[in-house]
């Protein structure tokens, strides 16, 4: 019994941190630009494929540093794509109705999926974790793959890094000002367009890194974007759109619900997080860390 | 006179901010009751609470002897009120004529049930005729087919008034009906409103800033200050009231 609970908590943590890695960039963009970015899943997927290509070039049985180079490459490539997307798409969505900008980012997701099919084909591809992450650790009786521990730690590091970035640095302060009141920020002489651009590039780079780090767990296919996207959407919304801390807590909450639900009803994986999402949204549409709207 | 609307001990706050405190308010049948007060006195909030746009935190509101405190705006409309908004709300992409058609059809639906127009696609002849009559009454002939969003400010206000009249309300509530109008449009609007009131035998409830409008229309005046009523009665008596003079003259 203790064993089962330990394992279930561990699985929940793994789900939560993997999802948070994807959701972090998503919630950042929503917080600043108020765009719910469907394409995030697509760029996450491109990150995974880019890192796959890099690792393929180095051959099999790779040390950890090659894995990290793959992640860097994914960050750079997807970050540059983010720059293009902001220039050509997001910038023009400022005056567009919410429904239409949601649809525009969905169009981008389509383009991503199509591009991946054109470049990498339809076949499933897969990668083993680097050998140094391909073992197991026992804590008590609980069997823990080191790769999964690595993912959990990555999620925690990403969260702490983001909190520090937003709350302790100058660029973080600028981002916060722009998020609260872009009009006032412009009046104070801040280059709001530049801050938007930096945020988008950073958020996309995070999507790329997330893709690279989570790749060894998945078989790569052009549908990969959609799978993580829905989980990340759920986390962002339950967390209260735009709140990093909220997204982190929501990831933990939903991860535990999903993990315990699947433990109790193993025939229905993937359903409990959706149920929890629906219930939470209905009870408190603004999310656990969201402010209640006055209207 | 019968009392058509009766509100007792209304409290309303938004978060920590108390906007209305222990406000009681009456509306007698046939009167033209104007609520005035400095900016931030709570006029618009009072208006919202009475029309049902927001709920009050405590107190009661009676309409025609029925308790409507817990009823939403649309339910109060069905019980005989009609209202306008400070910035005229109309259906921007429809023509002015279609705006009126929607209003008339809504009234008919409420009177005769939702199946009354079943089987019809175009508006029925009687509905079209009524819309045309309203168009003539309010002088909207020239703008009939234009998308309502392109109408001038004054025409939008008149269209909204026409839509409210189409509901055949007992009480017509107008939130600053002349806001943003030029002085000449204003006196025009005052004439139109008092015409309409006489013709339909309406009870009027207005909030207003402009003194010309206030004394042109009001049969009763209520002064709101810091979320409380400090005077209410015939216009000339309120004008002479010491506290009212203090509030208005002392502050400006």
């Amino acid at each position, binding site marked *: 019994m203790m064993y089962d609970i330990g394992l279930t908590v561990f699985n929940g943590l793994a789900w939560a941190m993997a999802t948070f890695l994807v959701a972090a960039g998503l919630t950042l963009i929503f917080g600043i630009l108020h765009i719910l970015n469907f394409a995030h899943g697509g760029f996450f997927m491109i990150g995974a494929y880019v890192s796959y290509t890099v690792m393929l070039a180095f051959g099999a049985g790779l040390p950890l540093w090659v894995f990290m180079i793959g992640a860097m490459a994914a960050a750079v490539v997807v970050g540059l794509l983010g720059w293009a997307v902001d220039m050509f798409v997001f910038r023009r969505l400022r005056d567009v109705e919410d429904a239409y900008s949601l649809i525009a980012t969905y169009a981008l997701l389509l383009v991503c999926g199509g591009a991946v099919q*054109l470049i990498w084909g339809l076949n499933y591809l897969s990668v083993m974790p680097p050998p140094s992450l391909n073992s197991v650790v026992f804590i008590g009786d609980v069997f823990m793959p080191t790769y999964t521990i690595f993912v959990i730690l990555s999620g925690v590091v990403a969260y702490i890094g983001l909190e520090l970035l937003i709350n302790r640095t100058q660029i973080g302060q600028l981002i916060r000002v722009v998020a609260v009141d872009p009009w006032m920020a412009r009046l104070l002489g801040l280059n709001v367009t530049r801050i938007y651009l930096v945020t988008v590039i950073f958020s996309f780079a995070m999507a790329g890194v997330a893709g690279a780090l989570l790749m060894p767990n998945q078989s790569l296919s052009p549908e990969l974007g959609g799978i993580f996207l829905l989980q990340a959407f759920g986390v962002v919304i339950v967390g209260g759109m735009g709140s990093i801390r909220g997204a982190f807590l929501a990831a933990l909450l939903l991860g535990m619900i999903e993990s315990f639900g699947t433990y109790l009803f193993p025939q229905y994986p993937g359903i409990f997080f959706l149920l929890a999402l629906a219930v939470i949204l209905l009870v408190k549409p603004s999310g656990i860390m969201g402010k209640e709207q006055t209207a | 006179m019968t009392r058509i609307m009766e509100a007792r001990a209304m409290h309303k706050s938004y978060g920590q901010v108390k906007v209305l405190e222990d406000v009681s308010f009456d509306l007698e049948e046939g009167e033209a009751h104007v609520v005035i007060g400095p900016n931030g006195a709570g006029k618009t909030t009072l208006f919202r609470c009475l029309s049902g746009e927001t709920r009050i935190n405590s107190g009661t509101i009676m309409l025609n002897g029925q308790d409507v405190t817990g009823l939403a705006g649309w339910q109060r409309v069905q019980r005989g009120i009609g209202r306008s908004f400070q910035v005229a709300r109309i259906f921007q992409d429809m023509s002015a004529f279609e705006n009126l058609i929607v209003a008339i059809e809504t009234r008919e639906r409420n009177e005769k049930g939702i199946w009354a127009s079943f089987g019809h696609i175009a508006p029925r002849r009687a509905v079209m005729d009524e819309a045309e009559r309203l168009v003539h009454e309010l002088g909207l002939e020239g703008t009939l087919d234009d998308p309502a969003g392109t109408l001038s400010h004054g025409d939008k206000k008149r269209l909204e008034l026409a839509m409210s009249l189409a509901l055949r309300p007992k009480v017509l509530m107008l939130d600053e009906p002349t806001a943003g109008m030029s002085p000449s449009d204003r006196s025009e609007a005052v004439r139109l409103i008092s015409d309409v009131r006489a013709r339909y035998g309406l009870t009027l409830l207005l909030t207003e800033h402009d003194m010309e409008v206030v004394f042109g229309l009001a049969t009763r005046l209520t002064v709101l200050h810091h979320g409380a009523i400090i005077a209410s009665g015939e216009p000339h008596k309120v004008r002479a009231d010491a506290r009212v003079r203090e509030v208005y003259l002392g502050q400006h």
Partner: protein
Amino acid sequence: MIDYRVRFRTNLVIAACGLAAFAVVPFVANSGLLFLAGLVAINIVFGLSWNFLFSGVGLLSFGHAMFFAGGAYGMALITRHVPEMPFLLALVLGAACGGLIALVFGVVALRRASGVYFAVLTLAFSELIHILITKTTFLGRNDGLTGIPRPVIELGFGTLNLTSATAYYYFIIIAMTLVAVMMWCFQNAPAGRLLQAIRQDQMRTAFLGTPIQGWQLTAFVISGTVAAFCGAVMVPFTQIASPEIAYWTVSTQPILFTLLGGAGHFWGPAVGAILFGAIDYGTRTMHGLSEITVGVLLLAVVLIIPGGLLGLLKRRRAAASKSTRAETAGERTSETEAGK
């Protein structure tokens, strides 16, 4: 003044032209294209059902697959377990499945959520149904329900054999035309005007004495029922109800159709569905090209031509008629009205 009669007649003619164009397909195309044309016909009405919500009452749904799949699986279950049920009644019951899903979901969701929240809630609920289908043995899990027969309809004076693909194709296009015309009538009738009013200004409509949520729910159920009807009609054509039709990419199909064709026009989704079918067919040998083409087109629509294809056409026609307005002032009204 609006001439409602001309408007009705014009749109009836459009529907009849569409039906005639589809009726010619079996004479000029092979069986593969015939199959595609049948699916396009179904997609047209699927798109109309979505746009009925989006442009008709102002609700953004990212979960229309749940209704489509509800209708399809309802129909498949009935044909497998109650084969003696008359075909048309089975279709109606299939459509009712979608309406029921819409009712249950709408009662809960419309009360709390709006805008983007509502969209994501539909997405989540639809995915829930997708997962349930793939995990339920009764619904065939990942394999779906296969071997659905096409019907032979007993009419009092004889039988109507729809077992061939061509015969069933004709049934599809006639049924879809009827539903499309019915939807047009509803949207242009008093109730449709009221829904349109709700989309344009909820507060104003409420203060005309209208229960907004009740009407939104009604529209949601109607939209779900029509989408489910599309799913139910499709099942005997493809002879399978598979879980892919509940996947969220299916939910986005009618969005694509509508935006490509033009959300502001009743027939926008029809134009979009045909265009989409053509792109899909034209790029079938290159994996990924159709997604890129459609994605880029969709982006272009949102960023550059918000009215979609029909919006573009209307704008050009308005510009053209401006120059000749003096002579043809009378005709212009009937022309611009056609799109409504």
